[in-house]
């Protein structure tokens, strides 16, 4: 099981502030994110889903517990180590502001590799570009692309370095449903066809239905899981949890 996990959290706690103002965002979460799987993390706002993703991706430090990406333990790495890890083993797709306005689409896609001083594998590059279907737009600046196209460029950037994990933070939050479906379809294809590991934070049940597995968070803990969900099942689970939450 350990070898199959692309990312792993072991009894992770995240506490902000201290004393009266103390907020516990994560309460001892342990989760394995299997390699080659598309995992969605869901939960109401304040449930800690974004915090968990930030901790898993090496963007934020944990208060207690361990986080692993591949075989590397993140906890204890300094800024330089974390930066290198993000560069080489993690891909990111954010909700908005994903691209540098000064660079063309192609330059944006190859940026992490360029920063690392590596050349993209041309075959793989072609495959990725053909998958996102933006070959004729590679020379365009982000301002000349639609929101959906920009987000597909961001996905291509995340995939090109063949990272251990791609983290997507509400990747469809700013898109209309058709563009959103394109992006999600592309993420699922990357998992199915290229064996990529993708972890996505979302609050949209429809988006979550593209995933192989959905992890539900509530109040800093994992409260439910679904495997191979459809939108209906996700919605049901959310309703159930919501009722539980109200009762509690």
């Amino acid at each position, binding site marked *: 099981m350990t070898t199959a996990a692309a990312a792993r959290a072991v009894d992770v706690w995240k506490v902000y502030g201290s004393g009266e103002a103390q907020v516990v965002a994560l309460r001892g979460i342990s989760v394995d994110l299997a390699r080659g799987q598309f995992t969605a993390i869901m939960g109401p706002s304040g449930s800690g889903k974004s915090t968990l993703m930030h901790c898993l991706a090496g963007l934020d430090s944990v208060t207690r517990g361990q986080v692993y990406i591949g075989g590397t333990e993140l906890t204890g790495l300094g800024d330089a180590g974390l930066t290198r890890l993000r560069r080489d083993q993690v891909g990111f797709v954010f909700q*908005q502001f994903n691209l540098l306005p000064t660079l063309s689409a192609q330059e944006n896609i190859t*940026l992490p590799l360029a920063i690392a001083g590596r050349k993209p594998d041309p075959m793989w590059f072609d495959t990725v570009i053909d998958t996102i279907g933006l070959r004729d737009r590679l020379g365009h600046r982000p301002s000349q692309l639609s929101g959906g196209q920009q987000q597909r460029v961001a996905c291509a950037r995340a995939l090109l370095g063949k990272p251990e994990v791609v983290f997507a933070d509400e990747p469809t*939050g700013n898109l209309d449903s058709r563009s959103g479906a394109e992006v999600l379809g592309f993420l699922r294809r990357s998992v199915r066809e290229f064996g990529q590991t993708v972890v996505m934070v979302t609050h949209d049940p429809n988006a979550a239905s593209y995933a192989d597995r959905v992890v539900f968070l509530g109040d800093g803990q994992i409260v439910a899981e679904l495997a191979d969900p459809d939108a209906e099942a996700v919605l049901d689970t959310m309703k159930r949890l919501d009722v539980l939450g109200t009762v509690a």
Partner: protein
Amino acid sequence: MLRATFASLLARKLRLILSGLAVVLGVMFVSGAFVLTDTLGRSFEGLFSTVYSQTDVQVAGKPKIEVDELEGAPIPANVPADLVERIEDKVPGVADAVGLAEADGARVIGKNGKVIASLGPPRLGANWTGESDMITLRPGSKAPTAENEIAMNAGLAKTGGFNVGDEIAVLTLEPKKTFKLVGIFGYSNDRDSIGGATVVAFTTPVAQQLMLGEKDVYSAIRVKAAAGVTPEELRDRIAAELGPDYVVKTGDQLATETTDSFRRGLGFFNNILLGFAGVALFVGIFLILNTFSIIVAQRTRELALMRAVGASRRQVIGSVLVEALVIGLVASVLGLGAGIGVGALLAFVFGQMAGGLALAGIGVPVAAVVSAFTVGLLVTLVAAVLPAIRASRIPPVAALQDSAIPDKPLTRVTIAGALTLTAGGAALALGLSGNAGDATLWTVLAGVLVSFVGVALLTPLLARPVVSVLGRLFSWSVPGKLGRLNSGRNPRRTAITAAALMVGIALVIGVNVILTSATKSFDRLAANQVHAEIYISGEQSGPLPPTFDAAVLDRAGSTPGVAKVTGAYLDRAIVNGTKPDFVVAVHDIAAARDIFALTPAEGSLDTLGEGQLVLDAESATQIGGVHAGDRVSIQLTRGEAETYTVAGIYQDNDVISGIFVPESAAKNFAVPQPFQAFVQLAPGASITDVLPRIEALLADSPEVSASDRSAFIAQQTRQFDTILTMIQILLALAILIAVLGIVNTLALSVLERTRELGLLRAIGLRRAQTMRMITVESMVISVFGALLGVAVGTGLGTAVVRALRDEGFTDLAFPWSQMALYLVLAALVGVVAAVLPAIRAARVDVLNAIAYE
């Protein structure tokens, strides 16, 4: 509305400080200049009232030649020694009259064989007139009583390390003479010197001979009034007795007059400082303009919201201008405070350099306060007007839109720039062509200033292509490339920031081009048109030129290997009643003719006998169209006006011009010793053989040296380096403000691009790479500015050199190494300016930056 303005001011402390700092520095310079000159002025007042404290009335001869204050002090005619008795005997109410034989120019040779230099205060030689309330001999001293004895003030003795009993060599109107030091004296209140002046006291006959050049004369007579007689009464009585040939003044009058004359000199100095302050403030305007533009751009939504909720255009303009007003006010107060400090510090340094000028208390003249606030407020408001108008044009709907208003095309600003540059160029051309009359200086300055504005307006258009080419130098790495792209992102912002740096560098390079061309032209002249191999000359270090023993000329002439020697003595004279002009007494006119390749236009240049003169064609026209055989009257510093006959007129040339009189006339010069000589070697003689022989002749003339052509040119052009250094120091402030501008622009850009930086860090850009990205952006801007400065400076310098072609600027030469140096320095400046913004960028919190809303 006002409350909103203040809230926005407080929320932007960093911008406030940075843009305010430019004004603070400029105001500091302005008020510092006023405080400095005021303090020095009052210090001189104290100094001269001390100098004349023992004088009730002073009688002196009328100067034969009046000269402008900026050209030096006029030398009074000597008065006969028996005038002392006449005053004592004929004028009632005189307690005591003392003849003074005192003049500047007693140069003591130090233990290292070199003349003890002065940085301004006179090196007086005087007759010993006894101890007084003011002057007392130090223990172990006695007054000089024999011809070979001298006393000196304690300050000079300390500087030279002299003790009573030492042999002291002194240069005066006569060549080096050696004396025995018998007395060291000090002044009241235990002072070693008065205002840093050095004094060598001889016996009266020796002082008359060595300092005044004549026996039985005095330079002035100091009169003390008897009890009950006021100095004014005594002055009037003496004036009545002596008639109009003498200048009779009270000690107070002299103190006031001398102080006033120094004050006028300081006023000139003050204007120079204010000129440089003006440049700094001009650059400051760019910085403030940029800051406000960026602030307005960043506050677009906020301002639009204000408009949406009902603020009028006028209120928006008002809010931006009030913000500027507050910055200007705070900066003026701080600048004034800093200026007082800097003025006091500079006054102290100046006092120390001048050899211990006792400083009066630091005062803050009204002019300093008024100018500080006027300049501070005006500059800030002028710079804020354009951004304020732009702010008022933001439509209310911008509050609802997400996208920023796109940059307007550069067409209008480019056309405006081209027109402004043309206007500036036209003014410059008019000024340089000499057709602007009395307003020449102002026309040229206005032309330069307007041209700068024109270039600044054209800069945005240049920014994109130039920055992209420049940036390629730095974009071998990904952070470098990102930095280059960022610097090309907002051409207006990059352009204004770079243009600020351009101003200072353009001025330095412009002056440098002129001086380099002057050196080159001088070099070519000397090489092509002066047929001499060895040059005797010195560097001027005080009010009097360095001179040497006239006997050297003859001895050099009879030195083996020497073909010809000509030498020159220099003085001012009144020729045919015109305003004072230089005349040259020439040793061996035939040698001068051959060495300088002079060709006669009229008469002959073969000999210059007693009572004859030779002059160039242009001077001949200037003094009233004289021809060979005509008679010309010449009044020299000493003696009466004499009539000379024109023996010859030589054709105008680039090397020398002027009126030549025979060597014998030099006895009536202020300094009857030669200051330059040119030696032509005999065919076959080698300079390496002859130069040491000539050098040996100069053993007793330490102020000058013998050198070959290249060393001579280097010596003569060394003062250019001094000028350049001074200009660079004074322009350093303008450049510093420009650097602040780069810091400011970068800091604001980093702030604007926080999310971008967060994204880059998230996808793996290391901190060091982030810093490198900002550094490259900074370097691109600063090198762009320097490049503009070098280009504009070269243009300005070339224009001036070409305009002065007829004044001897035959060659146009460029200071390539200096230009390269400035580009390299600009790159370094870019690195330094980037430090703080880069650290800030590297510290951007990734999570905060990417978190939406």
